[in-house]
């Protein structure tokens, strides 16, 4: 599409962040090498440039970290809640102070646009710590009876799509309630968690309260199966979530799992179409669609299907894909070669099964991992692209005639994390929302998050809730 105005590059400066050539594991307040000396590299997905080399935790390191967390637990859990609160408030404020640095770091390591890390990830990270800080001395008021007790050592494994935000969702409530933590970030995005370790130092957090282990799935497995871990919190794939659910069987570990999704975004014929199109775009192309609660299935009422699709394609053609550090960029890089291969393969399956593919006409950079915004029409409920979580910028479009049909199709999924409803009629929003088997339902908006609002899934999207008053339960012995 010809444009009267061309964008000039508006890159955010890299100089606000200083990445060291190597990092150790953060155990008991110190950076230390892995017991077996192993390391791995983390690359920038937009350029494949090596950013740093980090220690690769093994079972011995997990044991060391759990011991440190156990040791720290006694004093940390005995602190008055008001003192724990003040540590967390400090962390929240330091994150706010360093948010530009952390946003650039996250964009470099993850590949998502600076616009998103700057305006979504980082503000939410700080807000999450601020919110749970306030709970630390108010647990008597949280509805779990007087003086609810922490569980002990929490083993937490987080994904690469929102590295620092998922860390905040895990660490803030755990610390507020008096637990200590061992957290493993994803192998492709270890850096922001290591910077968080430095924030813990600045905040004067007692040693051993937070331990960060960078590494692969084997370290995560060693962590969640460690006999001295009292609480397992995992965000990631449904397959790994099921493996964790099996591994904790017969123990008294408390578990919360936040897993995959195949969210339905339902557009009724009376919806404000322009707003709905923006919501559809936010729903599936935010963070390159690498969002567990993405609205990856568009259910559009037949009478407005053509209008919505035309507007949607027109809008997608204007999205800017490229350098994630450019402030104009809408679509950044896919997080890893492995994820790109998975998206590519599922899209090929979609085409092979007979769905019709349309991709936005945009030029892909020559290095890095990229995938153009894509949608499928002529999709049936039996198609792989309508059932499997793609975790990429790929939207499957299905249609419906009646509200009942929309509900039936939306619920026809192993998952139940999120859904969206677009209509001007309030009673229809509420009636449909009541029928949806999903943990979060957005009406005339999508992908909204707030620390006060509980988040989590039905069915195979996992169990437990993170955020809000409800999020405390996962870390309390109640």
């Amino acid at each position: 599409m010809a444009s009267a105005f061309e964008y000039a590059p508006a890159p955010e400066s890299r100089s606000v962040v200083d990445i060291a050539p190597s990092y150790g594991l953060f155990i008991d307040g110190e950076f230390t090498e892995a017991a077996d000396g192993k390391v791995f590299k983390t690359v920038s997905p937009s350029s494949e440039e090596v950013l740093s080399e980090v220690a690769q935790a093994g079972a011995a390191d997990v044991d060391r970290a759990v011991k440190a967390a156990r040791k720290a637990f006694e004093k940390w859990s005995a602190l008055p809640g008001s003192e724990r609160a003040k540590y967390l408030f400090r962390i929240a404020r330091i994150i706010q102070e360093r948010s530009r640095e952390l946003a650039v770091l996250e964009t470099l390591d993850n590949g998502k646009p600076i616009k998103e890390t700057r305006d979504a990830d980082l503000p939410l990270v700080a807000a999450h710590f601020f919110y749970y800080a306030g709970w630390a001395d108010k647990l008597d008021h949280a509805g779990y009876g007087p003086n609810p007790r922490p569980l002990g050592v929490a083993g937490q494994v987080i994904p690469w799509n929102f590295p620092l935000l998922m860390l905040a969702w895990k660490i803030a409530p755990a610390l507020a309630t008096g637990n200590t933590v061992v957290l493993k970030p994803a192998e492709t995005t270890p850096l922001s968690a290591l910077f968080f370790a430095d924030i813990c130092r600045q905040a004067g957090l007692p040693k051993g309260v937070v331990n960060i282990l960078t590494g692969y799935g084997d370290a995560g497995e060693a962590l969640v199966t460690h006999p001295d871990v009292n609480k397992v919190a995992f965000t990631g794939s449904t397959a790994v979530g099921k493996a964790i659910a099996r591994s904790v069987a017969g123990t008294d570990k408390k578990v919360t799992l936040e897993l995959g999704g195949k969210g339905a975004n339902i557009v009724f014929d009376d919806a404000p179409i322009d707003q709905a199109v923006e919501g559809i775009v936010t729903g599936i192309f935010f963070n390159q669609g690498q969002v567990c609660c993405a609205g990856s299935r568009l259910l559009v009422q037949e009478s407005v299907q053509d209008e919505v699709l035309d507007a949607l394609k027109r809008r997608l053609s204007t999205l800017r894909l490229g350098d994630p550090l450019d402030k104009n960029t809408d679509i950044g890089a896919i997080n890893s070669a492995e994820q790109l291969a998975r998206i590519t393969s599922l899209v090929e399956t979609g085409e092979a099964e007979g769905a019709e593919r349309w991709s936005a006409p945009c030029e892909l950079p020559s290095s890095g991992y990229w995938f153009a915004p894509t949608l499928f029409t002529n999709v049936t409920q039996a198609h792989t692209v309508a059932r499997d979580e793609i975790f990429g910028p790929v939207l499957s479009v299905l249609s419906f005639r009646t509200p009942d049909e929309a509900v039936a199709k939306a619920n026809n999924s192993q998952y139940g994390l999120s859904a969206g409803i677009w209509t001007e009629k309030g009673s229809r929003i509420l009636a449909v929302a009541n029928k949806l088997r999903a943990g979060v339902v957005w009406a005339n908006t999508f992908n909204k998050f707030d620390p006060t609002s509980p988040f989590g899934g039905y069915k195979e999207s996992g169990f437990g809730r993170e955020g809000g008053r409800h999020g405390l339960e996962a870390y309390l012995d109640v």
Partner: protein
Amino acid sequence: MSDQNRLGVFKTYKLYVGGKFPRSESGRVYEVTDSKGAWLANAPQSSRKDARDAVVAARKAFGGWSGATAYNRGQVLYRVAEMLEGRKEQFVREVAASEGLSKSKAAAVVDGAIDRWVWYAGWTDKIGQIAGGANPVAGPYLNLSTPEPTGVVAVLAPQKSSFLGLVSVIAPVIATGNTAVVIASADAPLPALSLGEVLATSDVPGGVVNILSGVTAELAAPLAAHQDVNAIDLTGADAELAKELEIASADNLKRVLRPQPVDTDAASASEDWSASPGTHRLTAFLETKTVWHPTGALGAAGSSY
């Protein structure tokens, strides 16, 4: 010249109204002394007109403050704690002089006051989850109750606990989005007037907290009778005055928080205020709004939604 020989600079204590520091429009002052009777300062003796001006300022600030997000209000209250931490020494001195406390006891009081701001900073975005929620009505309706601030609150600060007590009555009022007209302790108003200087540099919008010093009964009467004041906290009133003010408050059905036993215990006022405050001072100045909305039927016809 050594410190001993240097003549100190006295502070002119002023009111805090609408984000500014006026003197009393009446031009009056009264002598404030320490617990042993030594002169500390001449504090403004506010008039009925000053009280009415403060209500106007508080009303003007209400829309913006109550409309701010709870998260934003929490950050602002936390900022007050940060600012106080840096001015601790000044307040320790003022509290020690006002209440006749040793330096270490006064320091504990000031620490407690700072932590009290932190406590209420954390409540701004949680009280709604405690005091509100969805109601399971027997019908196809979403029924949601949400607490909202009641409006302009007149606060009679405790007479004995000039700072911890003061903070303990101001913070819960503004945490939920109310604005306040505060009558400082009559005999020990200096920490309150200095708190105004902290609030002015803490991102608290002007008019959210207004602080008056003077004769409690003289200022409380017009506030209790004021038609644009929505609630009154009688903590700093004795039993007789409290009754009079409650009668006056009935004229426009102000929400009244009566003096609590803890507030009037003269023996060890500062220790009393150090207990964990609970939520009653938050909920005392909240309205509950309940919204009904039909959810549509889910019959086989499916047409009604």
